């Protein structure tokens, strides 16, 4: 009697789980399926999930229809630079805020904390005017400056470093290690979960950023994948197969990064206190 009740609740649990997972994934499956179809077949109903004659041509044509390779190259360049700089500078700063005593430490950290709650949209206008006065509008450098120095990265890394016992640093100091060495030899190797979390957020954020590049980048050869994709969608709004093929391509790098790092991810969120 009791085991059958447990079994029933198990079945119900899996049913709910599979239903939600399907809801999350169906749009992607549909996207993949549509990317292999002729435009006229995209909306046939009932949905034909696996196309009879997959049209791989869509994946070939999209590269010539828009400068997709150029867009991908630009986005890759920006994403790699921003992610590297962000990881380095924020973990560097976070180490000082977590483990070193110095004048005005709390005041300086307060500046970071206070800005986390200020939406970027509040200062995007003055920021744009400032960058323009530096001669940086329509340059990739503007996007790099925009994305690299986030308060969030410093805050997150500091939360994580605070969880590492001070004794570890003290012992190293007594052994005569310099602070730079302690950071490099002890803190960095210990912070893999937090670094992975920050890598995912920064990588995904920069790769997918839309409003930033839209405001700053005007020259076509400098544009990023997301604006390129958006441009293509509004210009060729009925080329469904091609739109979906380009969309699938734009998701691949993020998928790779996410799957590669996801085992650290929940751990990272749990140990950095971004759960509150």
């Amino acid at each position, binding site marked *: 009697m009791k085991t059958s009740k447990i079994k029933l609740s198990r079945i119900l*649990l899996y049913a709910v*789980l599979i239903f939600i997972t399907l*809801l*999350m*994934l169906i*749009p*992607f499956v*549909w*996207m993949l399926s549509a990317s292999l179809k002729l435009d006229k077949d*995209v*909306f046939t*109903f009932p949905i034909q999930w696996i196309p009879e004659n997959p049209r791989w041509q869509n994946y070939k044509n999209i590269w010539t229809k828009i400068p997709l390779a150029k867009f991908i190259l630009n986005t890759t360049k920006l994403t790699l630079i921003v992610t590297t700089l962000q990881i380095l*500078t924020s973990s*560097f*700063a976070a*180490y000082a805020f977590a483990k*070193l*005593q*110095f004048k005005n430490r709390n005041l300086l950290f307060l*500046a*970071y904390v206070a800005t986390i*709650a*200020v*939406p*970027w*949209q*509040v*200062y995007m*206008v*003055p920021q*744009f005017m*400032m960058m323009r006065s530096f001669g940086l509008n329509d340059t990739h450098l503007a996007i790099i*400056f*925009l994305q*690299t*120095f*986030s308060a969030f990265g*410093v805050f997150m890394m500091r939360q994580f470093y605070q969880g590492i016992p001070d004794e570890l640093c003290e012992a190293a100091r007594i052994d005569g290690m310099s*602070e730079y060495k302690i950071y490099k030899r002890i803190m960095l190797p210990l912070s893999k979960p937090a670094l992975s979390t920050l890598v*995912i957020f920064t990588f*995904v954020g920069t790769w*997918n950023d*839309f*409003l930033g590049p839209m*405001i700053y980048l005007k020259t076509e050869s400098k544009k990023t994948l997301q604006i390129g*994709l*958006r441009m293509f969608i509004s210009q060729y709004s009925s080329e469904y197969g091609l*739109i979906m093929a380009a*969309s*699938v391509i*734009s*998701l691949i790098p993020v998928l790779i990064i*996410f799957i590669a790092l*996801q085992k650290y991810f*929940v751990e990272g*969120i*749990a140990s950095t206190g*971004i*759960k*509150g």
Partner: protein
Amino acid sequence: MENKNKESKIRQLTDKQKTELAELEATLIGLIDCVQTISVSKEKEKVLSNIAKTQKKIKHIKLGGILSKETKRNLVAYSFIAPNFIGFMVFTLGPIMFAFLLSFMKWDGNNAMDFVGINNFLRLTDDVRFKAAFVNTVVYSLATVPLTLLFALGLAIILNQKVKFRNVFRTASFFPYVASLVAVAAVWNMLFSPANGPVNMLLANLGVAVKNLPKWAADKHFAMLTVILFSVWKSMGYYMVIYLAGLQGISAEMYEAASLDGANSWQKFKSITWPMLQPTTFFVVVILTINCFKVYDQIYMITQGGPGTSTLVLVYHIYDTAFKSWDLGYASAISVVLFLLVLIVTLVQFKGEKKYANS
């Protein structure tokens, strides 16, 4: 007194520095002796410059000794912070202050700025589009926050149990969050296409009359709903991960004790899970609300603020005012309103949290 002070400072030198200092002082005495016996002016000059150099070295070591504790420690720490902080000051903190200043100005970005006092803020009261954007932002948030929270919590509770393929399910539900918004919004637009989209086809198959089929993004009564559904679908995975982290902080013993007392699942949820998750829920609500106030990308991709002003939100209005009308001071005034909205919500929630913690 002064001498004693100097002595104590010198005592902070390392042994190595002390020997070096002693050697230098000996050299100095030697050089001074030497200089008195030399009469050739060229040689004398050379020795004198040597004396000056040695004195400089001694001073450097002594001062270095003084620096070493307090100032040196500060300098090391600042060297850690500088790469990030300088960028942060120039590209974030500076523009934030500039934004507040600009909200009292009239500026088209090219000519000189004019100080207009609170005129920009007075203008807001007559601005129909601003009012619509304000109301829409609030409506969007009031619907999106509880819906996302509910789904995220439910899914997290399921995925915190021992189920097969747990990691696959977790990854699957997180994926919409990391996927590019432009790409998934394109799919969404097709799925919800009024004429032949699969969603309406499905509804028609379920017996909804063709004339009653919603026009989704094209219908001013359904446009906001379309955006809300999209947002909940896209971001619930992220909040689910935060809830998962929170759930992992609750000890299994509490549930075991409750089971022994014969509590059912609902009772366990009500008296253990929900109260223990209060800090997480508080955090999720704050972050979620702030993110809702910032909504822009999905509006741009799905409805462009329309039809009419039915999905116009604050950030959309800021963007249009700034980069289409080049009315930068006025755009900044709307930004300040957005900032105040975020501030008020955060403060109210913090206060509520405190009250909860005390009771």
